[in-house]
């Protein structure tokens, strides 16, 4: 009908003005719209980023739990087959570009996996002789060959890369290092090297029967050349052989300190060589598969480090024997330490890793990559080829197979963290050389074949230990202090108590750590009895004094105003502290006495008394010091939250209780405290969260040794201190790096969980007050 704006043109502009007055300017609308969008987007992003921390850290940890990935589809195969013949062994270069196969007629045949060509080496060491025994010591780049005429040849193989235009070419080289003479055809050989000497074990077949000899060869290094290998001496071990059982295999460790003779009946003789000469003793004879029907051994060889022996029976039973000293034995012996799932069939090949305790084994058509320490199968698969030999590359990044139809196949492997896994981090682990499974953290070691021990349990234990002692010290002070402040303290005094607590809360932990280590630790090092006296004397003194005081008549009591007790008690406490401190040495000489080994008298010495009674260590930087200083860091947090929740209890409850005739302590203890209990619990939990994550105090005030004992006079290593100490040195994306990230995740989860529970408790408390 009528349109309002046009109906009254005469009255004109005023009304029009009136209406447009309510129009919001475009600019304002635009700004508002933009800001709404911006804040929503930005806010969500910030919150997401903050919470994304956890996601990122976890993403860094996940690769630890992945198995090995072996891409059979990405295999590289030689186009040309090796010449016909019976191949006894294979070796390869670091990049697995030019594998070498050794034929039973003594020919060395290289295949180039880049160009695909096969090339027979000119190298000939036999000179008309016939090869009867062969062993490839890949770890030492050495081929040991025995001949029919009784000769043993040590052939060193090496590869050197040359780069041209960024393309790598690998050049092979063979070098006959030594030839030794023996009586009769050689049937088995093995060799181990230690420094500049090599120990060769040789089994020959003479007319009188088998003959086992050890041959020691050495070389003198000069400045210019490495020198030639010369024979030093021989020793005969024939009498240790069985007359009725043939020898199946001989093994020499790569430190040349042991010779293992494997017999056809499944027995193994362990000969130990002491010193650098030829003295050997037969230390142990054991039968790894004694409990099975089939006691024979099909395959026996060492793992990296040559301390463990991987054994496989003809039926595929796969066991690991390691050298360690058990309590009843005088020396290190082989004991079974692990048992892996059996192979489906007779083992066809075995190769240890050159980097870690992994090994590759399998039957002719299956292969499996296993990790010895964690007793896990990293990878297992059927193979599309029939395999006769296999090898793990030096960098553990590829596998090499020689197939039945004489082709080399190289398969890429990606297994950066074989030693990781739930079991390694949280389970008891039997490490090489130790006699029992235990939790252990030791991430770095001196030697190449050192195995990182990455159990987080000692660190979690240390974290809990530190937290426990901190809370033991902090909770009474904070809670009783809070109760006093909230219930009994004159409100006027709160004005300085609360800021004092805030000052305490703001002290940087590096300052506390420094004071703990350089002031507190030396001070109480030889005054532990004094500390004990104080711990007993001060609370007892307070209680007794309170009792005495409350018995006094009113006209005396009036001198102390209620709400000021803590101030009046301060001088008494100083006296008690002084008394306790001075009493320490006396108590020490009366109770904590030990026999002095020099004089034979009994003298008071707590630092020696404690170890002699408990059998645990006494250290200067110990949990007592950490507990005290970490407690100092925790007190203000617990105090503030507990005090808040006590003060927030409605006054009606308090006045009601007092009106009914309850004393102020009864009111506090029976009425206020139960009402605020959820808040107090949450205060303790938040304090716990702080103590769990505290880093600098622990780094500075303990010895950072990852031990597992509750002893208050020894140190600990916590998760957080461990990260601070080790992460700066950890190689990016290595196993240690990721394990430390895992430590951070554990720490995150621990504190987050504790804090969330605390927060929920507090919310619950708030709901409760609503109804009161």
């Amino acid at each position, binding site marked *: 009908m009528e349109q309002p704006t046009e109906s009254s043109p005469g009255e004109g502009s005023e009304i029009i003005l009136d209406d447009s007055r309510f129009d919001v300017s475009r600019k304002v609308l635009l700004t508002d719209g933009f800001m709404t969008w911006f804040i929503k987007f930005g806010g969500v992003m910030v919150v997401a980023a903050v919470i994304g921390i956890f996601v990122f850290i976890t993403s860094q940890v996940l690769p630890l739990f992945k198995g090995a990935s072996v891409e059979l589809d990405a295999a590289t195969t030689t186009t040309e087959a090796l010449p016909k013949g019976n191949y006894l062994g294979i070796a390869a270069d670091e990049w697995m570009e030019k594998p070498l196969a050794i034929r039973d007629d003594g020919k060395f045949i290289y295949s180039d996996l880049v160009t695909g060509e096969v090339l027979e080496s000119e190298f000939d060491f036999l000179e008309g002789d016939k090869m009867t025994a062969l062993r490839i010591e890949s770890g030492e780049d050495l081929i040991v060959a025995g001949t029919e005429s009784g000769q043993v040849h040590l052939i060193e193989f090496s590869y050197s890369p040359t780069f041209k235009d960024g393309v790598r070419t690998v050049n092979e080289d063979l070098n006959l290092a030594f030839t030794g003479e023996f009586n009769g055809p050689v049937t088995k050989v093995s060799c181990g090297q230690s420094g500049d000497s090599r120990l060769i074990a040789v089994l020959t077949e003479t007319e009188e029967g088998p003959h086992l000899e050890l041959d020691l060869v050495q070389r003198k290094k000069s400045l210019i050349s490495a020198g030639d290998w010369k024979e030093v001496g021989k020793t005969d071990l024939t009498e240790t052989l069985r007359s009725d059982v043939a020898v199946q295999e001989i093994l020499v460790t790569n430190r040349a300190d042991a010779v293992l003779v494997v017999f056809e009946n499944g027995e193994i003789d362990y000969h130990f060589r002491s010193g650098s000469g030829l003295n050997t003793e037969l230390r142990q004879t054991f039968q790894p598969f004694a409990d099975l029907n089939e006691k024979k051994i099909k395959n026996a060889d060492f793992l990296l480090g040559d301390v463990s022996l991987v054994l496989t029976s003809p039926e595929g039973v796969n066991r690991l024997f390691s050298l360690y000293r058990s309590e009843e034995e005088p020396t290190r012996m082989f004991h079974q330490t692990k048992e892996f799932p059996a192979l489906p069939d007779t083992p066809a090949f075995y190769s240890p890793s050159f980097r870690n305790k992994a090994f590759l084994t399998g039957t002719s058509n299956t292969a499996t990559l296993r990790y010895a320490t964690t007793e896990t199968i990293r990878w297992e698969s059927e193979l599309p080829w029939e395999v006769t030999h296999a090898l793990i590359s030096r960098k553990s990044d590829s596998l090499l197979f020689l197939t039945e139809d004489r082709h080399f196949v190289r398969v890429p492997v990606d297994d950066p963290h074989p030693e990781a896994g739930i079991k390694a981090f949280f389970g008891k682990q039997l490490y090489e050389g130790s006699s029992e499974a235990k939790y252990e953290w030791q991430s770095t070691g001196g030697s190449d074949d050192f195995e990182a021990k990455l159990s987080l349990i000692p660190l979690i234990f240390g974290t809990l230990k530190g937290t426990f002692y901190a809370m033991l010290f902090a909770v009474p002070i904070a809670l009783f202090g809070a109760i006093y402040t909230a219930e009994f303290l004159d409100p006027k005094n709160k004005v300085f108590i609360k800021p004092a607590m805030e000052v305490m809360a703001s002290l940087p932990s590096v300052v506390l750590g420094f004071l703990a280590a350089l002031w507190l630790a030396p001070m109480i090092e030889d005054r532990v009895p004094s500390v004990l006296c104080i711990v007993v004397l001060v609370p007892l003194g307070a209680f007794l004094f309170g009792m005495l005081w409350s018995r006094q008549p009113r006209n005396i009591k009036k001198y102390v105003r209620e709400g000021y007790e803590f101030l009046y008690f301060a001088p008494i406490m100083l006296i008690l502290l002084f008394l306790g401190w001075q009493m320490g040495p006396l108590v020490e000489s009366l109770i904590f006495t030990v026999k002095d080994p020099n004089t034979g008298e009994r003298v008071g010495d707590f630092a020696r008394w404690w170890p002699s009674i408990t059998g645990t260590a006494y250290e200067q930087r110990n949990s007592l010091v950490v507990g005290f200083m970490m407690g100092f860091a925790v007190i203000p947090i617990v105090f503030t939250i507990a005090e808040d929740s006590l003060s927030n209890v409605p006054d009606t409850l308090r006045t009601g209780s007092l009106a009914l005739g309850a*004393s102020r302590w009864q009111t506090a203890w029976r009425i206020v405290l139960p009402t605020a209990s959820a808040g107090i619990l949450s205060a303790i939990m938040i304090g716990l969260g702080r103590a769990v994550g505290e880093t600098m105090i622990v780094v500075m005030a303990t010895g950072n040794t990852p031990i597992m004992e509750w002893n208050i006079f020894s140190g600990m290593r916590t998760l957080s201190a461990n990260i601070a100490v080790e992460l700066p040195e950890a190689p990016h994306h290595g196993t240690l790096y990721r394990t430390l990230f895992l430590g951070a995740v554990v720490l995150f989860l621990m504190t987050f969980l504790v804090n969330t529970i605390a927060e929920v408790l507090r919310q619950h408390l708030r709901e409760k007050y609503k109804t009161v």
Partner: protein
Amino acid sequence: MTPFENSKSSKKSSGRGEPMVWFTGMWLSFGMLMIIVLLSIIVKNGFSTFWPSPVLQIELVEGSEAGLRGSSKLAGDIRKEQIRTTASETGEAVPEIQLFIGNREAYNTGFRFVMESDIKSRDFPEGIMRAERLEYGDMIGYPARLELADGSTIKSTDDSFASTLHDIVKEGNKRRHEIEHIEKDQIGAINRSMESIKMKRRGWESEEDIPEKTQKEMEEKQAELQADYEELASEAKTLRELQSANTLHYLLPTDGERSVPTGSIVDYYYPNQLNLFQRTLRFFKRVGSFVKEDPREANTEGGIFPAIFGTFVMTLLMSVAVVPFGVLAAIYLREYAKQGPIVRSVRIAVNNLAGVPSIVFGVFGLGFFVYFMGGSIDSLFFSERLPTPTFGTGGVIWASLTLALMTVPVVIVSTEEALVAVPRGVREASLAAGASKWQTIQRIVLPASLPGIITGLILAMARGAGEVAPLMLVGVVKLAPTLPLDTIAPFIHLERKFMHLGFHIYDLGFQSPDSEAAKPMVFATTLLLIGLVIALNAFAIIIRERLRRKYKTSAF
């Protein structure tokens, strides 16, 4: 009659549990005492570092173990008096003093414990001099003579000795600054130009690809720079020779003459001739040089200026990063997000992040900022310098961002609290007057909650300034040759590593070879750090109290 007939029993019941009140009061007393003791230890030790205490000379009894270099005399200032229980079987308590004897090059040790029973006599010789040197810590001895470059000798008994020494030392200090200027600034500039030419060369695929003209230009420039460098280097060399031209010969308190080039004397005084006023002056002088000088001798001497500056820059950058994000998130959570279970749980999560250990943030900073972001920046923009990382290693920017992430929950929480505290009526009035939502927030809510936001920021700064553990992972170093802010373009060097007060304490106290000698410096640094942190906190408390008072009296 009184209303309470059985007054005796009522009295008893009102007193029940009274010992427990005392018992709880004891814990509060104990807590307060702990704070006082800790603070006073820091304050006492921190200040005594700068106080020029008199030098005591003692005469030892024959055959005392404390004697040095076969002499029966020892001189130094008393650092500690204590009662030690001897290690012998009798275990008797022996009073002893610890002397700081200085002259480390002669004695190989800075401190000496002397049993009271070994002291034959004590005195405070007037003529003993204490000099701060560039090497081997302080000298404590009797000046004998000055041997000047022109071959002349001035004996300490001569009238002109005092004024000549004063002038020479002053001149030496001036010259040292000159040498520093030449070596650090001028030669440094040449090095940078050289480096940039080298980088330019590397920008080409190979040497052959460089156009001939550019090649020539570069070579010319390089030759020019080389000539400049040699000139400056020889200038510095002459100055250095001048520094060691004059020598001060002095007698050790344990007898035996030593000499020190005057160029390596930073400052000297006669500690036993000072009166209280002069001591106070010297105290402030030492405080001043502590605050503004660079550290010397593996950080155990000199000042801590780079650490103060590093802490300052890091905290500043952190604040710049933390405020916008924290405030944005808080406004979103409080004003825009729909309040419900999701926002509530997000709030709990953010709250709890404030309780997550700082080292976890350090781990995140190392993995995400340093390796991931820094590594990406390097491969994108600084690929010619690889494999030497530029941003892909710890630096002040990553440290600031890590701490910003760590403290952002603090800012979010306190900003939210401040936003909630703004009365509903104010908002409604603004909206009713026709303001848009953003206008209300911008003009009404934010100004009102500004003190709260500032409180949060200050608390975040206090936490950031005192935190060490995460910094150890993301870029703090024991000695940084350069500052993150300087006069060389582009002025702000975000990728540089930096020094930090907290880390300085850790490093000095625990990584230095002679922790006893480093102790005074550690206490002084500690005093400075806690002074800073407590001041920041106190500031935050004051603002918060004002805020509270403001809303208490507010009419809404």
